[in-house]
């Protein structure tokens, strides 16, 4: 009789999710599903609000990546005003977005996934947390926290606070970077860069022992999508959309944000509040694509800065010219942190940092606009339709984590099929399934635009409802 294993909630991710693993009569994994159990309705309750409120409103979708929503929302607002923002404003927005990438990636690598990577998949669960990491390697743990602090302090230096800064607005930004904060960030940059490089060094050493995991942690062909610069380089704030296949061939390129809906469809699943975007020309679910650090490195010809480009070259040497293993999201994340430190150095030395011209003023000149930027987890779209007074009539938020939904399902299935054998479910195997999800660093509050918590348990349940096994997390 078919049975199922349920992991609920998934630990050490942002938000709440459960995983259901289906077993056949021979206790072999037949399928696995990643469900998101939060519901919010953001796209509904923003209708009627003035568009200029949207950056502040949408930033409150999430406490981990509010900056990402600020950027995409402000850019959508720029489009409604039909303005090109001052160069200094764009550079300041880029600076904040790079700070966001650093702080979010540092959280993901050092806090959320670090216990698995540095303590081992099979280490005791009670030690597989940040305190276990500290006990094993205090200097690394400290460095990871200070790296995240650096990213957060960039955000606070510009926006006045680290979480939900009301700073990027349609037309530009509210404030510049003070000379004191600029000097402080410049002085702290070498440490941030050194931590990124040490993280890369450690991960490469760890990677040499994980060939099995690399093969089965979401290693499958898919498309990859993200923003690139006009000359095909790594981009995090602007640019054009590009889709690349698993062989590295470009299948769609130079797509303006406004045309995203020509290429991306959204399917609704019955068992999750997470929508499943897909590449329209291939249909659903064949059009599965991945976004985020792995995708950004796969679609880019180069990072655009020497240290990061050197690491990108080794990344491709180790993982292939187009890297398909989701396990290597961790590696890509670290390379992006390194790139961010290099780009930040250039921005801090840019004379435009002293400019006082930070906003373009206009009234509503267009009734529809799409703002797109790269959140740490992947490409983020804010699509707004307003009336002639600038009040929201309709909005669609296409979230990075949602775009990885199909890939996360496939990853969970692959890992479960490889590691779970029989009716006894050892905890380290469950952790590997969760770790597969964590590789994507999903932000589930954003992706369901959600609030709320549910008290949840892990259950192995027969179709007739008999509970075979139960584990409690949280």
């Amino acid at each position, binding site marked *: 009789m078919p049975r199922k294993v349920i992991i609920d909630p998934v630990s050490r991710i942002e938000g709440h999710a459960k995983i259901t693993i289906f077993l056949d009569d021979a206790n072999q994994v037949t399928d696995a599903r990643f469900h998101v159990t939060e519901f919010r309705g953001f796209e509904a309750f923003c209708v009627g609000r003035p568009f200029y409120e949207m950056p502040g409103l949408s930033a409150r979708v999430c406490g981990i990546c509010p900056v990402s929503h600020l950027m995409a929302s402000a850019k959508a607002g720029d489009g409604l005003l039909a303005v090109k923002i001052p160069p200094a404003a764009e550079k300041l927005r880029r600076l904040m977005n790079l700070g966001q990438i650093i702080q979010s990636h540092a959280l993901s690598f050092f806090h959320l996934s670090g216990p698995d990577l540095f303590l081992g998949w099979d280490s005791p669960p009670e030690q597989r*947390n940040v305190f276990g990491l*500290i006990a094993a390697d205090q200097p690394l743990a400290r460095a990871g926290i200070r790296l995240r*602090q650096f990213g957060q302090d960039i955000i606070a230096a510009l926006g006045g*606070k680290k979480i939900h800064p009301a700073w990027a607005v349609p037309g530009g930004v509210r404030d510049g970077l003070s000379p004191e904060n600029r000097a402080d960030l410049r002085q702290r940059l070498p440490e941030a860069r050194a931590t990124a490089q040490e993280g890369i060094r450690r991960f490469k050493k760890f990677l040499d022992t994980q060939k099995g995991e690399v093969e089965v942690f979401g290693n499958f062909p898919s498309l990859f999508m993200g923003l690139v610069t006009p000359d095909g380089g790594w981009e995090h704030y602007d640019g054009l959309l590009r889709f690349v296949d698993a062989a590295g061939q470009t299948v769609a390129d130079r797509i303006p944000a406004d045309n995203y809906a020509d290429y991306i469809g959204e399917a609704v699943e019955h068992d999750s509040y997470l929508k499943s975007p897909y590449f329209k020309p291939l249909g659903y679910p064949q059009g599965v694509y991945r976004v985020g650090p792995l995708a950004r490195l796969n679609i880019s010809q180069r990072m655009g800065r020497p240290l990061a480009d050197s690491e990108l070259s080794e990344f491709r040497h180790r993982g292939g010219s187009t890297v398909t293993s989701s396990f290597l999201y961790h590696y890509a994340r670290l390379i992006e942190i390194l790139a961010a430190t290099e780009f930040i150095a250039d921005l801090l030395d840019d004379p435009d940092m002293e400019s006082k011209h930070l906003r373009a003023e206009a009234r509503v000149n267009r009734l529809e606009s799409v703002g797109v930027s790269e959140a740490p987890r992947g490409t983020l779209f804010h699509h707004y339709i307003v009336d002639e007074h600038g009040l929201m009539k309709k909005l669609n938020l296409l979230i990075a984590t949602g775009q990885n939904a199909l890939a996360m399902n496939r990853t969970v299935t692959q890992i479960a099929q490889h590691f779970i054998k029989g009716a006894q479910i050892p905890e380290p195997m469950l952790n590997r399934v969760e770790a597969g999800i964590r590789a994507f660093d999903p932000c589930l509050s954003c992706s369901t635009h959600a609030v709320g918590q549910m008290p949840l348990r892990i259950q192995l349940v027969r179709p007739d409802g008999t509970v075979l096994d139960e584990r409690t997390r949280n």
Partner: protein
Amino acid sequence: MSGRGIDLLVVGYGNTLRRDDGVGPHIADTVASWNIPGLEALAMHQLTPELAPRFAAVARVIFVDAALHTPQVELRPVSPGPATQALGHACSPSWLLGLTQALYGSCPEAWLLTVPVVDLGFGEELSLPARDAMQSALACLRDFVEDGGG
């Protein structure tokens, strides 16, 4: 951004869009305006692990938070929590102190100042009871600072 020369750190935290939950940040902002040498105040949405390096550099910390079903302003010591818990959605004062202890080998002397509140609905204004309690909390903090604290 550094903690140099700071002896006492006041950390007021809470959601300023949930009415009385914002009393902690409001108190921190007021304390910051006192401009007392050696005293720094942070208004935060929530406690985060990145406070640990700040805590390692100061001698004393006071956490300020809203509390339902509490009859009056209360200041009580907080000890570092056990070094076994995973990072959840938000850090508690004891967890954060435990993290500081684990990372740096010591942690500051700490207290939690709880401020009685009644309304956690959506909005930015404090209720009248919360505003009254805020004044009591500020008086408590003022006394703490003037008496040398601890």
